[in-house]
């Protein structure tokens, strides 16, 4: 579903060329849940931007869900982001003074989905993340964990090929982090949702089935994690 080959990204910093990404090649299959790990400056944010079609690579090829995206123009990239990728950010990035429901409806609005269908699908997504009762609350009336659930519902609402989560538990306490990780795992297990976690936290990364490690813009290891931690397993069983 994701096939990259020799992805590079070069930034011009003053007079110097910085190779943020220096030939990353990997494949992600449908339904996989994996983590991209690395310390800050390793290029994982750059890689996430390229996978998420927020940025175009300087070189290499990238096929997402059968579409070659490395040479697409801005508006085609926007369309692909809207249709195939669901983003979850560390800071939730919800629109202030806007209800949970409307926040979740946002991607559908840009995708041109009609009003009634939009509402129905957004409700379903909110129910899926366990917030069916809080649809009309604005972000400032929700806890951090609830806000991140709204953000996850927003990422899910377009039924994306990939859920791309950038440090999704970075702004949450450990108890809430467990809930969020548990939600990702259940989405993966029960709905077959492909999930890519981008994190510097090894503990978070061990919740996935495969860990790609980046350093200095290169993939230094890409290994399966046969026994992922089951978040909140003790409580759920």
């Amino acid at each position, binding site marked *: 579903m994701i096939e990259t080959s020799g992805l590079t990204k070069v930034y011009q910093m003053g007079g110097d060329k910085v190779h943020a990404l220096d030939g990353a090649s990997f494949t992600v299959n449908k339904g996989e849940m994996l983590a991209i790990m690395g310390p800050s400056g390793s290029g994982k944010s750059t890689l996430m931007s390229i996978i998420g079609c*927020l940025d175009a690579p300087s070189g290499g090829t990238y096929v997402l869900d059968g579409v070659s995206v490395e040479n697409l123009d801005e508006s085609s990239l926007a369309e692909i982001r809207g249709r195939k990728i669901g*983003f979850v950010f560390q800071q939730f990035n919800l629109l202030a003074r806007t209800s949970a429901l409307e926040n979740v409806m946002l*991607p559908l609005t840009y995708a*041109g989905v009609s009003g009634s269908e939009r509402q129905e699908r957004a409700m379903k997504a909110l129910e899926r993340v366990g917030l069916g009762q809080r649809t009309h609350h604005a972000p400032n009336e929700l806890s951090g964990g609830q806000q991140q659930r709204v953000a996850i519902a927003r990422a899910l609402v377009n039924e994306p090929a990939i859920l791309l989560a950038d440090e999704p538990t970075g702004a949450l306490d450990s108890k809430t982090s467990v809930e969020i990780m548990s939600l990702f795992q259940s989405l993966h297990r029960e709905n077959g949702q492909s999930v890519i976690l981008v994190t510097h936290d090894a503990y978070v990364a061990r919740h996935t089935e495969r860990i790609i490690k980046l350093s200095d813009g290169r993939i230094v290891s890409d290994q399966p994690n046969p026994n992922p931690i089951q978040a909140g397993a003790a409580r759920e069983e």
Partner: protein
Amino acid sequence: MLFSENFKIALRALRANKMRSVLTILGIVIGVATVVALLSIGKGASASITDQIENGGSNLLTISPGKIQVGLPSLGQSRQTSRMYYSDYQTLERLLATDVSAVVPVYQASYMVKFGDESFTANISGVVAEHKDIRSFTMAGGRFITDGDNKSGALTAVLGDQIARDLFGSLYPVGKTISINGVKFQVVGVLEAKGSSLGSPDELIFIPIETGYKKLFGDSAAYNGKKTVNSILVSVLDSDKTDEISARAEFILRRSHNIATADESDFNVLSQSDTLETLNTVTQTLTIFLGAIAGISLLVGGIGIMNIMLVSVTERTKEIGLRKAVGATRNQILTQFLIETITLSLLGGILGILLGVGIASAFSVSGLIASVITADSIMLAFTFSLIIGVFFGIYPAFRAANLHPMVALRYE
């Protein structure tokens, strides 16, 4: 993405910063209000001027002493050096007879007027019977000065509406006796109010001109033993011939005043259309001047809106990044911010129109100028604010649309 959705987003963003939004549109409100009020009042003013002129008769020529002055009179040059005589009136009446309905002399001076305890200074106008028709006066009661009054030198007076009120209050003036400079006059008529129009008779007292020369004006109305007049009014029969009669009157008077061909006339002949033109020029200059101020206000208002929108784009960089991440295209962001600016400026425009209409109505109610609010001026103001919204909104909107999604998302 529908317009209504963008509009909703815009309203939400503007509500989020109510105070800021209000202050931002204030410039537009003031500018638009000025434009609307100005156009309404200007239109009202010129309508009432035109109305007054037509009321006064478009075929009326006013001949008065003095040179036509261009600009300010130079120092030391007195306007009182030239005079017109009663004999000028007689000459004109004789020579223009076939083409005019009437030629009338007017001698005007101010004197103390008294009735009971009331006394004040008023303008006394010595006139003949035809004066009433030439100036289209209407009687509120009694009669106007007659030929008989002039022949017999009767001590009769006709009061303008305001004078009648000031002197008599609620009393009916006709039949009462007033004193003008100590001379007793009997009030024989009162004129209907004409309002604050040009040469309104409301604050005048009319007496027979012959009576005036004999009993009231005295020496001041004579020069070198000849009776003088302040002005001569000529009512032309055919208004198409006004210019021709004007030229003939000038020729006749120049000859009787013995003015050499090269010299300027010591009197001037003014038609009502000349007066209209002069007044219109003044009104137009004023309108252009105030219009320029309104334009500057709109420009400043527009810059204010642009400034705030730039701030808003910076503040909402993260929001823009998020919107792009969930699939908003460049054009959708551009439209969103453009509509936000247009909403701001249109809101200012609508408030400005309301305020402008209010100001114009206040002018009407206060009786200063009957303003005329036209759909034209409202459409113009509306269009103006729309154009300002687009013009000053396009740059901030481009700034927003051109943000790189990744950079915007990481913006702190």
